[in-house]
Structures are given as C-alpha cells and as structure tokens.
C-alpha cells in the first residue's frame, strides 16, 4: 500500500532510466521534414531583404519560410495571447518585417534532414535597416514607469525610516538569468490532413499550446491535439508557447508534411528569461532589533512590446512585523525579448535582496541574524491584514539551526577557518505562495481493481505522475501499481500550465474529489450485494481500504470492489471532478523555509565552495517525501547557481547576448554541489485545501542565494551586492 506521505519511487522512473521516455523531438512520422531557425543579427529595426538563393540551392532543402511567404497567421495581436501572457501585444514570429530583439527568428529553413536544414540556415542572407537600441537596464532608471501591480503601503515608511535608531540602505543587483532546461525547446508536428494536427510540444501547458495554435492558425480547437508526456525540464521557460511551436506549425501547413523543429542551445537564449533587476532595500530598526520601516523598490526590465511584472518587493509583509512599509516596482523597456517566469519568479529576486539586507541590519544591530528574524517574526500577513492558514517558520528556524549547528557560529567576519580556507556561515528565510488553480481529474476504476487517473497537467520533472498515482491509490485504497496515470495530453480533463508550485494542490485535490465520487458509487453498489454487510451504509460511512469498501464504524463489515461492481453489473466506474481553490481571502497562504549555508573560500585564490546547506521547509502536507526532497535539493542547486554562477551577458553595443551556451553561461555542475540536507517540518493545515497540500516546486530556490551571499560576507568580510558572487568581486 502506498499512501500519501510515503516515499514512493517514481512510477515513471523505469521509462526515464532506460531511455524509453519520449520527449517532444523524439516522435517519428512518415515523410518528416526538419526545420532550422535563422535568427536576426540586429537588435532593432526591420528586415529589408532576404536572399534565399544559396539556401534553396542546397540539395535537400524543401523551402524557406519568411514573413513574406509564410502561410496565413492571425492578424490580430490578441489572437497570440496565451493563458500566461502579460499585458501588451505578444511577439508574433515571422509575422512581419519588424525586429524587436536581437536573435529573434527571421526565417525557417525546411529540409529533408537536420544537417541540411542547419547548413542552409547559415546561407540565408538577411539585410536589415537598423535602429538604435537600448539593452542596458541601468541606463533606463529615469525612463522607467510604475508597474501596475505595485503593492499597497502601510503607515509612513519614509518618516519611520528617518527616525529609526539603526538604518540600513543598499542596492542589490541581479543579472538576467536563463532557465536552460537540458532539453531544448522543440515540437514535432504530425500533419494528419483534413486540417488536423497532432503536436508533440515541449511545454508546461498542453491546453495552453493547443488554444494558442488554434487561435493563431484559425483551426478548430478539437483539430489540434497537443501532447507532452515527458518534458526535459522547463523551470518556467515552457509556460508560454515559445516560437518553436508556431514555426513548426507554419512549416507543416506550408509543406503539408509533418515537421520537427528543435531550437539550438544558442536559441534557448532568444526568448524569456528572469529579468535583470536593481533593488533598493531600506530597513529602519529599533536598537532592540525590531523593525520600524521597510522600503523595498525594484527596477526591472521588460520588452518593448509586453509589460512583464513579478511580485518582487512585498514578501517582507508576510515575514516581518513592521508597521511602516512602502513598496515600489518600476519597469524599463529594453530591446530584448519579454522576460518570463523563472523558478520562484519574483520571490527568488525579492527575497534575495530582503534577506541580504536583513543580514546587514543584523550586523549593524550587533545581533545574530537568526535572532533578528525571530524578533521580527510576524504572525499575520500585514500586506492583507490577515492570519496565515499555517506558518511553521519558527519550527523551520529551530530545526534548521539545530541540524546545521548554528549555535556554534562566531558572529565576527573572518573568524572561522579550516586550514587555508576561510569558513563562512550564513542564513536566510524563504517564502513562496501556496496556490491552487482550477483543475479537473478523471478516474476510471475497472472491476479488476485497477484505476486510471487522468488530468492534462504536464510533468516537467517534479514527479507529477507519481503524485497523481499516490493520491488516487490512497483515496481508492489500491496498491500504487494498480494505478496508471495519463497526463500531458490536451484531450484530457482540464488543467492549467504546470507552474507556481500549484500542481500538487490543484491536481491532487481534483483527484481526491473524483475518488470521492467513485467511493459514493461503490457504496451504492455494495449495498446491492446479497446479504451485504453494508446494506444500510451511506457514502460517508465507508472508506476504501485494501481493495475493499469498509465500514468506518466496524472494519469487519466490508465488501470487495469486484463483488460490489458485480452486484451492480458494472465493469467500470468513471468519475470526473473539478476542484477549485477555497481561498476566501481570510487567510494568507504561504510556504516557508529557513536556509543555512556554509561556504569555504581559499584565502588566496578566493574560490568559493558551498560545502553545506540545510534547508528546513514548512509546506503543509508532503505527498511524497522522496520526490519532494528532490524538489528542494534541485531548488537549492538552482539558488546556488544564482548565487555563484549564473549571468546572461549582453554586449550593449550590439544589443546581443554573447554567452549563449553552456560553456559560458555557467550553471552548477556536480563538483559545485556538496552536502545538502532537507528537513520537512510538520505543518498540518486544515484551511488551505482538503489535502492540506502547499507545493514545493519553488520554495527551495527562495532565500538560498541570500544565505550563500551572507555566508560569503561572514567568511571574507566582503559584502557583494550584485549576483553572481564571482571570484573577482571578493578578491578584496
């Protein structure tokens, strides 16, 4: 029996370790054509001429599509908006001659094989009329405008800050970061004829992709089927339909053939990213270590055509008691692609600055940084003036500190050593929203005691297959191996994109509800069994346990599922249910964490090693501690990359990203990662949703970069306020 809360191995594990799991670019089709994208070489302007002669002269090239010769696409900008689109007008690939950012797609080569397509793409000659571009965030401070969602203030922060005993004020910089999932974005479009398409897409939302394709190409929704059963990572990059999707469809419609299009790693840097951000945090405190004023302002980048906004600045309202707070969020338009959510969007950014600022305030107050957090602890969400559905953050601090050995920390910088290495211990708090979205799930239970659970969510890696199977097995009283999962197919019951850490709560509660429907039917059937021990049972009087319908009053009274179904002359029970958030605005819903980090830094070489991390997480009920632990481990590694490695570099003279590959855009490698301990703090929550589930996809990232940056200060005495903390910044 594998119930909710047991550390089950992934049900799709075998498919993944044997190579049987198939990703978007791995589906075969008869007469498949291969695409290769030609990217713009200028940042702004328009295309004035495209010479295709050399490309079309290559044997094996079938056609080259440009904005001039492509099949029809919707004219209205509205038709290109997807579920996740921010305000503005989405980018329309190959729509017209306009260049909105460097390396945007300008042509699509279609050939009989990939090598030919790639070679011919190098022969497409494009002439541009260039305009002056702007890609540097800092240069646009004075041009920035207020984002629409700036959170509301409380009290008078300016005045309280000016009057505070102790003040800390600083700017914190975060560069552009790219998701870089290991699988490049890709689509295989199967041209079925009669206006029908089956599309294997790399996406976090199959129904989002389906609606987009139907809208842009004026196809019937039912004629477009989007499948994404395995996704090779996404981290937000697949929330919106990226340009590989419409281009692959354009190719298929133009050729009336099936088409596969895979972006190159370089082209993975030609759409959404975590926006570069400059934040100013000002904290005013009483000398006893309580906060009087918080001012948190962010300047973030967006494109010329959409207003991408995250929640960056007001996380402190849920964490730290403070009567006076003011938050600001400004956007600057740059000639870059629109940013997109990247794992813990806004939270990873804002909490980094906040938690570094809290560390600096603790130093100014001569207080232990953990003690400062405890003195400022808030039992209410001050942004909304409401209590929490649950908040076991104190317990995270306690258990995390114990496991780490925080009480042995000498607070003075450069005070701890290990041979030739400086040792630094830093900590930070993490917080993320616990959200639930409307989703539907279908259960089909057959008389042999096998259940199929289906929902259109994708599994981008967190373990959605396993989570769905576990919830169904738990609620139906079946062994895990008797449950099969269908997901990642637009024909399945409705699901939003997989993101925001909401999948477990959204799909899980829908599955639980559908299981209740199954149980109700089974009890009704059980009553029909001759001399039924459940003859008088009402649906709520019985539970499903070990393949039987069992009376809650007397467990010796039960009927087996096959007997009940036989009595009702049924071969199968099918139930679909839709679950929605019960959020009535009376409680704040968050996950929390406390992160403790140890760094060791060679005194002379200044190479930083993150030797130890403890992350204690309070995230409600954990459905699968094994896969949830992996989520936190992965989040911590993502945060480690943010702290030490990741930075997309733009050559502002060209308006072009120059380190667009995995050799020059550094992400953590195996040798960068040492011991990471994950603790799940017990956090019952009967308010948040029937399962008490909060989600763990993002919380592991939030705060990690701050804990490491704070540890680096403790080791070296050098405070670096622009990520990543590379060797050059701590040479001293």
């Amino acid at each position, binding site marked *: 029996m594998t119930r909710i809360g047991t550390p089950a191995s992934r049900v799709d594990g075998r498919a993944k370790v044997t*190579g049987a799991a198939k990703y978007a670019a791995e589906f075969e089709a008869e007469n498949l054509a291969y695409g290769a994208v030609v990217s713009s070489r200028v940042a702004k302007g328009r295309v004035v001429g495209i010479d295709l002669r050399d490309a079309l002269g290559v044997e094996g090239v079938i056609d080259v599509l440009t904005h001039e010769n492509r099949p029809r696409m919707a004219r209205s900008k509205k038709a290109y908006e997807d579920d996740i689109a921010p305000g503005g007008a989405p980018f329309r690939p190959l729509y017209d001659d306009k260049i909105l950012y460097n390396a945007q797609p300008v042509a699509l080569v279609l050939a009989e094989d990939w090598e030919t397509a790639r070679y011919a793409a190098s022969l497409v000659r494009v002439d541009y009329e260039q305009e002056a571009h702007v890609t540097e965030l800092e240069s646009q401070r004075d041009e920035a405008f207020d984002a629409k969602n700036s959170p509301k203030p409380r009290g008078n922060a300016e005045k309280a800050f000016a009057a505070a005993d102790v003040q800390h004020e600083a700017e914190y910089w975060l560069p552009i970061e790219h998701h870089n999932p290991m699988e490049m974005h890709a689509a295989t479009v199967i041209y079925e004829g009669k206006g029908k398409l089956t599309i294997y897409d790399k996406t976090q939302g199959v129904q989002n992709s389906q609606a987009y394709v139907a809208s842009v190409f004026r196809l019937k929704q039912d004629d477009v089927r989007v499948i994404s059963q395995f996704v090779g990572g996404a981290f937000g990059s697949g929330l919106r339909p990226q340009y590989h999707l419409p281009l692959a469809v354009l190719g298929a419609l133009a050729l009336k053939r099936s088409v596969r299009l895979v972006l190159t790693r370089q082209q993975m840097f030609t759409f959404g990213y975590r926006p570069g951000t400059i934040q100013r945090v000002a904290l005013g405190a009483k000398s006893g270590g309580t906060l009087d004023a918080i001012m948190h302002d962010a300047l973030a980048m967006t494109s010329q055509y959409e207003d991408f906004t995250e929640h960056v600045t007001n996380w402190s309202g849920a964490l730290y008691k403070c009567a006076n707070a003011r938050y600001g969020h400004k956007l600057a338009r740059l000639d870059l692609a629109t940013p997109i959510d990247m794992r813990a969007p806004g939270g990873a950014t804002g909490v980094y600055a906040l938690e570094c600022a809290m560390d600096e305030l603790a130093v100014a107050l001569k207080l232990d940084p953990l003690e400062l957090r405890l003195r400022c602890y808030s039992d209410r969400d001050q942004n909304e003036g409401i209590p929490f559905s649950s908040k076991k953050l104190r317990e995270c601090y306690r258990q995390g500190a114990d496991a780490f050995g925080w009480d042995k920390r000498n607070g003075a910088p450069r005070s701890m050593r290990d041979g030739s290495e400086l040792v630094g211990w830093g900590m930070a708090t993490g917080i993320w929203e616990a959200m639930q979205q409307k989703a539907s799930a279908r259960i089909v239970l057959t008389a042999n005691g096998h259940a199929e659970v289906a929902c259109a969510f994708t599994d981008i890696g967190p373990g959605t297959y396993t989570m769905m199977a576990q919830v169904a097995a738990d609620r139906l009283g079946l062994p895990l191996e008797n449950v099969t999962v269908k997901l990642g197919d637009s024909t399945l019951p409705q699901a939003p994109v997989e993101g925001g850490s909401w999948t477990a709560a959204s799909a899980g509660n829908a599955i639980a509800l559908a299981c209740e429907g199954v149980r109700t039917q089974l009890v009704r059937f059980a009553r029909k069994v001759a001399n039924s021990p459940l003859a008088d049972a009402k649906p709520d009087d019985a539970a499903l346990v070990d393949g039987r319908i069992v009376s809650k009053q007397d467990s010796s009274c039960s009927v087996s599922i096959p007997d009940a179904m036989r009595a009702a002359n049924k071969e199968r029970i099918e139930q679909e249910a839709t679950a929605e958030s019960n959020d009535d605005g009376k409680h704040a819903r968050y996950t929390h964490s406390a992160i403790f980090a140890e760094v060791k830094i060679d005194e002379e070489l200044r190479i930083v090693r993150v030797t130890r991390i403890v992350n204690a997480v309070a995230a409600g009920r954990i459905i699968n501690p094994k896969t949830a632990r992996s989520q936190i481990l992965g989040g911590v590694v993502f945060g480690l990359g943010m702290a030490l490695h990741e930075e997309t570099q733009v050559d502002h003279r060209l308006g072009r990203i120059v380190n667009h590959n*995995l050799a020059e855009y550094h992400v953590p490698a*195996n040798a960068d990662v040492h011991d990471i301990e994950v603790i799940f703090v017990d956090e019952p929550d009967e308010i948040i949703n029937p399962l008490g589930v909060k989600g763990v996809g993002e919380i592991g990232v939030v705060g990690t970069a701050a804990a490491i940056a704070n540890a680096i200060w403790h080791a070296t005495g050098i405070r670096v306020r622009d990520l990543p903390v590379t060797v050059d910044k701590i040479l001293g």
Partner: protein
Amino acid sequence: MARTVRAVMEAEPTAPAPEKLTVTLVINGRETRLSVAPWTTLLDTLRDRLALTGTKKGCDHGQCGACTVLVDGRRINSCLTLAVMKDGAQVTTIEGLAKDGALHPLQQAFIDHDAFQCGYCTPGQICSAAGLIAEGKAKTVDEIRELMSGNICRCGAYVNIVAAIQQAMGKA
C-alpha cells in the same frame, strides 16, 4: 518594403548533398550497417536514423554531457563525434544497458535514490557513470563529483546522482 529573393528552383542544386559513406557500428551488441553523410554526428545518427532516442541532445557542443554514450567501453560525447569516425566501433547506449529486462545496477540505483527529475540528462548521467566505474579512478565522493562534472543536471539532482553511483559501485 522587404523583398525576399527566391530562386527559381533549378533542376540541379547549386550545392549537392554530401556523398554518403558506409559505416558499420555495433550498437548495443547488434551490427548495424548504414550509409551516412560525413557531417552527421553519432548523436544524430542514433536519434534520427536509428530511432535510439534514449541518447539526448542538450547542446550539440560537448558542453552538457546529455549525449554521453560508451564507445569501445569509454564514455564520449556523441555530439562531438561523427558517425563515420567510428566505423567498426562498439557503441553502448542507454537502451543497451538493461539485459533481458533486468535493469543495470546503475539504472536501479538511479531509481532507488531518485537521482533524476525531468529525466532528460539521465541516460547521459548513467552512461557516464558506467564509464566512470569502468575507468576505476574515482574512489571518493569528491572524485565522483569531479569526474561526473561533464554531465549537467539542471534539475539539480547531483546529491542523489552521487549517492546512486556509490550504491552501484558497492555492487560492482
């Protein structure tokens, strides 16, 4: 107004396709003869020609390790290797590790330790780990970490990958 210059499709292409060469590869113990263009990588040969899509493409530049396979027992990046360079070689891909339906100890260890999430780097990690164990150089945890650093896992499963490799080493 932009103008696209399109060629009148001529009978003879100006750039003919490269002449194909015949190679024999022993893939997962099976001799496979095929004619392949010189510019085709071993990776694309496996994925596009032989439908062995367990070997993954993550960068095409030898920077991520997702395409790691064993050639004559040594781990290599198949994206940096042209198929025609390996005439006669023994190639083992992820599809060839399990024997008669029984998982290779590394495959089982990866499941046991949850050493993957999205699964895309996993075949490369496992083939690389098989190569690592065969090399016999890695004795300590730090050596495993160092010698597995050519295989990027963006989901960040490194802690579990190292634990899985240690388990498999214990069995090996």
